[in-house]
Structure formats: structure tokens, C-alpha cells
């Protein structure tokens, strides 16, 4: 895609993302959202390893904390749908991220927690194979993490 095409797309989307969707401008790789909201952590979602993803997301590394409680199954019923949730007693939480170390892209989801929203999130994620699931909680400007291995016998990433 050329630069011209890119900025034209940007303008279009800024004028009305909904309209773009309707006329099916589709198939643009990644810039669409960057235009709609420049805070999407594009680089972090391209990183292969969890360390690189965390670095891209926060620029520093977390320390394990037993105040981060992850609820995940021992054996996923199917890697396509693994319910994982997290709660924490840490104060001033500003974001929570979920990573799967063996996935082709480690970062799965990153949630921004504004003041007034409780630091607990549940979601369903894909796991390609048996892997460590890592939850990173950003609280008071520091990073804390919890780890758990989830066994996957039916992979959720095809094949």
C-alpha cells in the first residue's frame, strides 16, 4: 500500500468509520484503527514473545505477585475457547493484560481500567497448545504478574 493510499484511508475513516465499514473498504492491514484511536498498542500485538510484548506495552518488566489471582482451567476443554479471569487486591490498577507464551503472537488482550472500574476481568482466549498464561497488572505505575500453565489437547489455532 502506498503512502497516498494510507493517508486517504485515514481521512476516510476519521470522517466516519461506520461508512467505511458499510462500503467494505476492508482488507487494509492495520492502519484503520490507528486512525480511529491512536492508543491501540499495535507494536505489542505484533511481538512474538511475551517479553517483547510486555516491553512494547509498558517499557519495563513485571514482578510476580500473589496479589494477582488468575482463574484458569487445568486442562482447556478446547484451545479455541479458554475462559480465563483475573482479580487483584492491588490498588490503583490502570491496566490488565493477558498473554499466552506459546501463541504465535503472545499478547492476547490488554484492558484499560479507568478510575472507578474494578480490577477484575473475565474473557475467553485462544491457545494454540499447552502453554503458560501470564497476566500482567499495572498498578500505581508498577507491573505485577501471575502465571499458570494450562494444558491444551485440542489446539485453538487450527491444524
Amino acid at each position, binding site marked *: 500500500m502506498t503512502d497516498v493510499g494510507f493517508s486517504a484511508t485515514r481521512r476516510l475513516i476519521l470522517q466516519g468509520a461506520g461508512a467505511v465499514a458499510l462500503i467494505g473498504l476492508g482488507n487494509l492491514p492495520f492502519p484503520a484503527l490507528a486512525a480511529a484511536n491512536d492508543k491501540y498498542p499495535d507494536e505489542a500485538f505484533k511481538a512474538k514473545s511475551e517479553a517483547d510484548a510486555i516491553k512494547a506495552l509498558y517499557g519495563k518488566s513485571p514482578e510476580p505477585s500473589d496479589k494477582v489471582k488468575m482463574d484458569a*482451567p*487445568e*486442562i*482447556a*476443554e*478446547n484451545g*479455541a*475457547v*479458554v*475462559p480465563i*479471569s483475573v482479580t487483584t487486591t492491588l490498588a490503583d490498577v490502570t491496566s490488565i493484560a493477558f498473554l499466552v507464551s506459546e501463541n504465535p503472537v503472545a499478547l492476547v488482550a490488554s484492558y484499560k481500567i479507568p478510575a472507578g472500574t474494578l480490577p477484575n476481568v*473475565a474473557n*475467553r482466549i485462544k491457545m494454540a497448545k499447552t502453554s503458560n498464561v501470564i497476566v500482567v497488572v499495572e498498578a500505581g505505575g508498577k507491573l505485577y504478574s501471575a502465571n499458570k500453565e494450562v494444558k491444551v*489437547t*485440542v489446539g*485453538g489455532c487450527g491444524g
Partner: protein
Amino acid sequence: MRLRSAIYLASAAAAFAALSLAGALPSGAADKVDPVADAKAFKKFFTDKFPKVKLEDFVNGPYSMNEDLYRQWQEKEQFPPYEFSLEMGKEMFSKPFKNGKTYADCFPNGGIGIRQNYPIFDDKEGKVITLELALNRCREANGEQPYSYVKDEMAALTAYMAFTSRGKPMDIKIPDDPRALAAYENGKEYFYTRRGQLNFSCATCHVQSPGERIRAEILAPALGIVNAMPIYRSEWSGMGTTSRRFVTCNSQIRGVPLSPQDDEYRNVEYYLSYVSNGLPISGPGARP
């Protein structure tokens, strides 16, 4: 020459496999078709095998057999993956055909709360009519194209109809008609007949081994298995009907599946539904 002996050997192996299985089970000729006794024995087999599982919980399939799975299921049920299909079915059900009629015109009680009566035996035709078949016949009678029997619209419609019957006990009738008994018996035969290169019958997995893992999956008990249909399977990333389950089971054991709604599939659904009489409808369901 070599070919001949290979076939002979293959045949002998099949015979041996069959014999080794037969050994542990009581055999004998069943001359009389006795669905009432069958259903009683069927339930007893499962409740004896799983004394901790309540009868009505068998409709929850593998989730009734494994705690970790049960928890994941409970979590999924908070906002179940069949929700979209269910809503689509509800909309479709009330939307009139081009001629102004609706599905409600084709069914007793407007189609609401009747799923537990299907499949029914139609004495005019002398055959088993499944809910899926009845839905497509309703469409065709009203000048509409039939849907695929295995997923999408058909799964959505049956999901909605099952939902309106949730909790109602399965209530399949076998009229005193030799053709109905023959259909039932044929369904039973299909259920217990080994087929495919893997030499598995439906019963191999769903009677002998429920609760155990085959590769990764925990096998569901045959008792109540149809009560949860249609299902959202994570493995399919979508919804499927009872026909879809039969077709995929056959392929998995390396057998060429029949066409959905072929007589054998209708009959096996009739058999399985009858022996699950009394257990609640739990569909639409979610499965790994």
C-alpha cells in the same frame, strides 16, 4: 494370491475383534422388540456406571462427568456461545414466509414447547419424522427453499424450538404399529453396529467409554445426548444439529457418512430419543 490372503487376514482380524468384544457382554437373541424394557435397561446401565450423576444431569454430556470441564462450562453458560444462533432462530421463527404463513402454522401449539415430542412417527407415511425434517417440509409446503440440515438456519430454528421446551421431559411415542417398532429396532441396530475402518459403533464411545478421553475429548454418555441438541461446539466454531453430529461421528471413525435425514439417521435419533424419555430437554447446548 497375496491379495486374497490379505483380505482373508483382514476379515479374520475383524472377526477376532468382534469376538473379543462379544466375550465380555451377554449375548442372546432378542426376538421381541421391547422399547419399554430397553429404555429401563439403558437408564439403569448409565446410573449404575455413574452413581454420582443425577439422572437429569446426563443431558449435560461430558460436563456431567468432569469437574474441571463443568466449571468451564458454567463460565461459558453465563453468556453462552449459542446466544446469537438462538436469537436468530427466534427472529426467523416469527418472520412470515412470502405467502404470509409462519412456522407456527405447521406445528401443534404454534411450535412452542413441543421439541420434546420429536422425532414423531408418522403413521400415514410409516416413517420417523425429525424436527429438522418437519421444519424443511414446512418451508417447502409454503413455497420456500429447504435449508441445509446440519447447521446455520436449521440449527438456529431448532435452537429456538428447543429453548421453548427447556426443562420439559423428552416424550417420544412409539405407536403400536409394526412399522414404528421396525424403525425403532433399525435405529437401535444402527446405534450398536460397528462401522468405519476404526470398527467403532456409536455405542463403543457413548456407552462403553463416556467420561473417558478419546484423544483430547471427554466422551458424552448416550443417555440424554439428544436432549441437548442443537449444540455449539467449540471444535466446529459454530452450531450443529443432531444430523451434523451423526455425520461427523461417522467420518471420525473413517466411515462414509450417510446423507442427513436418511432413514437410518432418523431411526437412530428415534431410538436414542426414546431411551432418553423422561430426561429434560436442555438444548441448545454448548460442547467442547
